[in-house]
C-alpha cells in the first residue's frame, strides 16, 4: 500500500509537470508529449520508456487496489455489529475518505484514460491526434472540467492522508518531529498536486489557455 502509493506520488508530480507545459503553448505541450516517447532512445525503442512506466503503474495499481480491498474486508470482518452511536473524535476527514475517495479516483482513472489515452474522445468533435487541442476542447466543456476538479479534490484528500499513512506503514514516523514532518509533507503534496493539476482545466475554462 505504502510503496505503491509512493510510486503514484512520484508519478502524479511528473504528470503535473507535463500538464503545466500547457501554459508554455501548444508547441511546448505537444513537444513534451513527443519527448516522452523519445526518452531513453536509442537505448530504448520509441515509446519504450512510456511502456515501462505504464507496466509499473498498472502493476502498482493492481497491488494498491488489492491491498485496499484486503484492508476493507478485514475491517468489515473485524466489526460485524455496528455501534448504535459512534463518534469520530480527532481523525481527519481525509482519513475517512480513503476508501470511497480511492474508488472515485479509480473510476476517474478509467474515464481519464478513455478521454486522453485509449479512446481519445474529443467531446467537440475536433482532432484527436493533437494532445493540446484535445485538452483544450475537453476542458472547454464545463461539466468535463467539473469532473476533473471533483477528481482533484479526491486526489488531494487521498494524498493528505496517504502520504503520512505511508510514512507510518514504512516505520518512518517514530518521533513527534518525524510525525509532524510527514503530516506536513502530506498537506503540501495534496495542495501542490491537486492545485497544480486544477490550474490547467480552470485556465482553459476561463479562456487563459485556448
Amino acid at each position, binding site marked *: 500500500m505504502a510503496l505503491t502509493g509512493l510510486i503514484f506520488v512520484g508519478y502524479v508530480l511528473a504528470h503535473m509537470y507535463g500538464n503545466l507545459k500547457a501554459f508554455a503553448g501548444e508547441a511546448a505541450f505537444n513537444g513534451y508529449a513527443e519527448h516522452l516517447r523519445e526518452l531513453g532512445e536509442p537505448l530504448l525503442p520509441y515509446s519504450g520508456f512510456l511502456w515501462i512506466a505504464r507496466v509499473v503503474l498498472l502493476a502498482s495499481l493492481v497491488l494498491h487496489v488489492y491491498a485496499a480491498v*484486503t*484492508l476493507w474486508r478485514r475491517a468489515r470482518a473485524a466489526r460485524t455489529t455496528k455501534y*448504535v452511536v459512534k463518534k469520530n473524535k480527532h481523525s481527519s476527514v481525509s482519513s475517512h475518505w480513503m476508501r470511497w475517495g480511492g474508488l472515485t479516483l479509480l473510476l476517474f482513472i478509467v474515464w481519464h484514460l478513455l478521454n486522453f489515452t485509449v479512446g481519445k474522445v474529443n467531446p467537440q468533435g475536433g482532432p484527436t491526434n493533437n494532445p493540446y487541442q484535445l485538452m483544450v476542447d475537453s476542458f472547454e466543456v464545463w461539466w468535463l472540467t467539473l469532473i476533473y476538479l471533483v477528481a482533484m479534490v479526491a486526489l488531494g484528500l487521498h494524498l493528505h492522508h496517504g502520504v503520512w499513512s505511508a510514512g507510518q506503514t*514504512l*516505520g518512518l514516523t517514530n518521533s513527534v518531529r*518525524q510525525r509532524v514532518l510527514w503530516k506536513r509533507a502530506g498537506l503540501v503534496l495534496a495542495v501542490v498536486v491537486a492545485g497544480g493539476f486544477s490550474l490547467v482545466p480552470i485556465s482553459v475554462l476561463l479562456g487563459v489557455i485556448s
Partner: protein
Amino acid sequence: MKFTLKIWRQDGPQDPGGIRTYELDEVSEDMSFLEMLDVLNEQLIAGDEEPIVFDHDCREGICGSCDLMINGEAHGPEVTTTCQLHMRSFHDGETITVEPWRATAFPVIKDLMVDRSAFDRIIASGGFVSVNTGAAPDAHATPVPKENADRAFDVATCIGCGACVAACPNGSASLFLGAKITHLGELPQGQAERDSRVAGMVAQHDHEGFGGCTNIGECTSACPKGIPLDVISQLNKDLRTAIKHGH
C-alpha cells in the same frame, strides 16, 4: 441529576441483544459512571429485574477492566477510564447511550461485558521477556539512557483496556500492539527476543480477527493513557526488521 440511559442488553453470546431504556433520578454529580450504574442495578434488583452486567475491578484507572462505549466514545467524553469518569461530565437530563466494545475478537459475554482474552493470547505470543531479569533493585545494574527509559515507561502505561480497538473504524489493535512492542523494544532486556516478539504478536493479532491499521488515529484520541500514534510506526519498523532477519 436525572438521566435517560439507553443501555445494550444481551442475555448471552448467542442472543442478538438490543437497546433498553432506563430512567435514573437523583444521581450525584460526584458519582463515577460505574457508581451510577451500581445505583441503577440496585434499582433493577429491587424491581426484581436482572441487573446489568459490566466489567470493572480496581476503579482506580489502572487495571483496564472497565470498558464502556459511552455516547459513541470509548470511556466517554473525558480522556480517562470509565471508572474515573464522573457524572459531572454530563449535563442534567442528558440521554446517555452505553454499548459494549464492538469487535469480532471481543465477543460479548453478557450485556456490556466482552471477552478480551484475545489480548492475553497476543501477549502470550511474544509480549514478555523469557529470562528472569532480577528483582527491582537489579534494575540499577543495567543502565538505560533516560530517553529510552522515558519512552518505555510512557508506553508501558498501556493497561490493555481495548479502547483503541473499540474506537478504531477498522477494529484494529495496532496501538495496543505498538505499545507493547515499543515498551520492551526500548529496554536492553527486551532486545534478545525483539524479532520473534513482533512477528509472533502480529501473527496472533491477525489470527484473532482484528482489522488492519490505516493510521486514522481514533485509537490514540480514545486511549485513556494517551499512547501516541508513533508506536504504530515503531511496530511497523520492528516488523520490517524482523522480516529482514528472516522471520
